[in-house]
């Protein structure tokens, strides 16, 4: 079985388990009774205020910014990088799996998106990986080296960070091994300012690069799949509900008007 067939089979199982967890969480929410709100919704709750709160509080967490600039920077770099890379992966995945492989579309634009070595795609993948690595390192340093007194590190914290860490830190090596496995020419690879130099550094090892690419690909994607399955049961679920809660509570508190 080829690498992508295995990937999609695993992905289907992952999504099914994730949805199972999501349904379990929603069943808890549905078990909750409706409580009458203490106050009527704030007046003048127009689209502009909602959008303002979504951006300032849901996405950019102004309350965290007020609390600690350092923590805000680490969280924002990581979360925005994650969001953008996720969007890029979804976009390219749609082009590759649905348009190109599914429907056989082969227009120049589709081919440019599908080809990882197109300068713009190579650059986007390379650049968007950086804030994730920087943000993750900052988060790890704070939790495990600086260890502020208010933190309580439990298995949940460690599992989430370990899965993210393995997934993210294997991104550039995977790219490097792909260059070696596919024999990418310097002209095409050089735009990848981290992956390609890493490939050059690894080349003297003369390993069976195709097998390594196969293996490293799964080392890279399996942690993310595990994280997706784990997400509804972990604190990582905040990536879905946190922005909603931050937005709604900011509107309730009148923060959006400030």
């Amino acid at each position, binding site marked *: 079985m080829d690498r992508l067939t295995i990937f999609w089979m695993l992905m289907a199982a992952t999504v099914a388990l994730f949805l199972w967890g999501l349904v379990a969480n929603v069943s808890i*929410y549905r078990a909750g009774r409706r409580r009458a709100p203490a106050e009527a919704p704030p007046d003048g709750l127009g689209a502009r205020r909602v959008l303002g709160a979504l951006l300032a509080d849901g996405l950019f967490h102004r*309350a965290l910014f007020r609390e600690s600039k350092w923590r805000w920077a680490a969280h924002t770099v990581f979360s925005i990088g994650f969001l953008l890379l996720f969007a890029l992966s979804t976009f390219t995945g749609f082009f590759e799996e649905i348009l190109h492989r599914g429907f056989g579309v082969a227009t120049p634009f589709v081919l440019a998106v599908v080809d990882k070595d197109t300068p713009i795609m190579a650059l986007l993948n390379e650049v968007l990986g950086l804030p994730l690595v920087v943000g993750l390192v900052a988060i790890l340093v704070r939790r495990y080296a600086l260890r502020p007194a208010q933190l309580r590190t439990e298995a949940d914290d460690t599992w989430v960070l370990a899965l993210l860490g393995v997934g993210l830190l294997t991104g550039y090596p995977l790219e490097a091994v792909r260059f070696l496995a596919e024999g990418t020419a310097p002209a095409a690879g050089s735009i990848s300012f981290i992956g390609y130099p890493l490939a050059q550094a690894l080349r003297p090892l003369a390993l069976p690069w195709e097998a390594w690419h196969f293996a490293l690909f799964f080392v890279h994607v399996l942690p993310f799949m595990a994280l997706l399955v784990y997400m509804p049961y972990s*604190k990582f679920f905040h990536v879905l509900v946190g922005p909603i809660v*931050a937005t709604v509570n900011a509107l309730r508190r009148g923060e959006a008007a400030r």
Partner: protein
Amino acid sequence: MTRLDLSRFGAWQWIQMDACTRCGECVKWCPTFAEAQRDEITPLYKLTRFRSYAKGLRGGFLARLFGHRPPTDSDIRLFSRGAYDCTLCARCTAVCPVHIDTRDIWIAMREEMVAQGAHPPLFDTLRATLGEKYNILGEDNAQRMVWSENLDTPLGDIVGRRDADVVYFVGCVSSFYPAVYGVPQAFTSILTRTGTRFAVLGGDEWCCGFPLHIAGMGDAALELARHNVQAVQATGAKRLVTTCPSCYHTWRHEYPRWLGQPLGFEVVHATEMLAEWATSGALALKRLDAQVTYHDPCDLGRTSGIYEAPRRAIRAIPGVALVEMQDHHERALCCGGGGDAEMANAELTAAVAKRRLAQAQATGAEYLISACQQCKRTLAAAARREKVRMRILDVTELIWQVMQ
């Protein structure tokens, strides 16, 4: 294994619990954890444990695989200690990066502890006392006006007065604790001086139900609420005023929710009226050359949003310099006297009060002013224990002092 009633919580409360990232900001600011250093007190513990229990109940085999399980009896006992060793000050909401509305969640958790029979037994006594006597001290409720007996100027026939514009809801603590009689005495004196037509309910005033509600016995508070609302409506007054922030919060924010309808009259806190009068020059305030610091009561500030009215009233006094403590406004440290914590753990309340008093002392102020009889009682007790020479007054008492 213990079953939990998930319907005790609102859907939005469950969603908010899932938004906790375990960042620990709430731990840093929790006043009771700062003193007791027991993890089960922290908001972080309570939120993450409870959501784990729920996932253990509803999440199936995967939840079990990931370590979630329903609580055991010993889990519940430990959880209950944390749930009740909390002043419900809501500072955790203020500092939470996504502002999880923790206080209502803590109250729902206490409701669950009551349902499990894991609450401190003293609260059963409170429920029985309020059911029979209608005040938290178990005194004869007909004696609610005892605080007014030694006033220089008698109040006259103000109990249940039908032509009043304002009903003054005195509250249990001010009515029955001699140490804080000064609060209703000062406020009614100001009302008289300003020519306000006001009434009190006397023996018809029942506890507002706040102590039961926050103990997790909200069902028992409903009868008290219905009685009080009917008693005020019977006077025909269009405004109700309280000096107690917890009564204010309950009347203003909880009663309409419990009863499912508007009250039909306005609810204000005394400091709002004082600020209006003091800044408009209606009170003829004499000079007081003194440095004053103000303690924000949790139920007036954080949970009701009134920060500036008491400050405006204080600043209106000629000669007074208002200095802020290290923690003030939304970040103000609790006095320790809220959330029924004193009933569950008096030692903890005293420790929190001591810390707040130290913050007040650090300002160099001669007066520590609050807008809550319970804060005054708690801080004054701390001052006595610590032998701190500082005048601790309610803002109504300060204003009345400079009106004489």
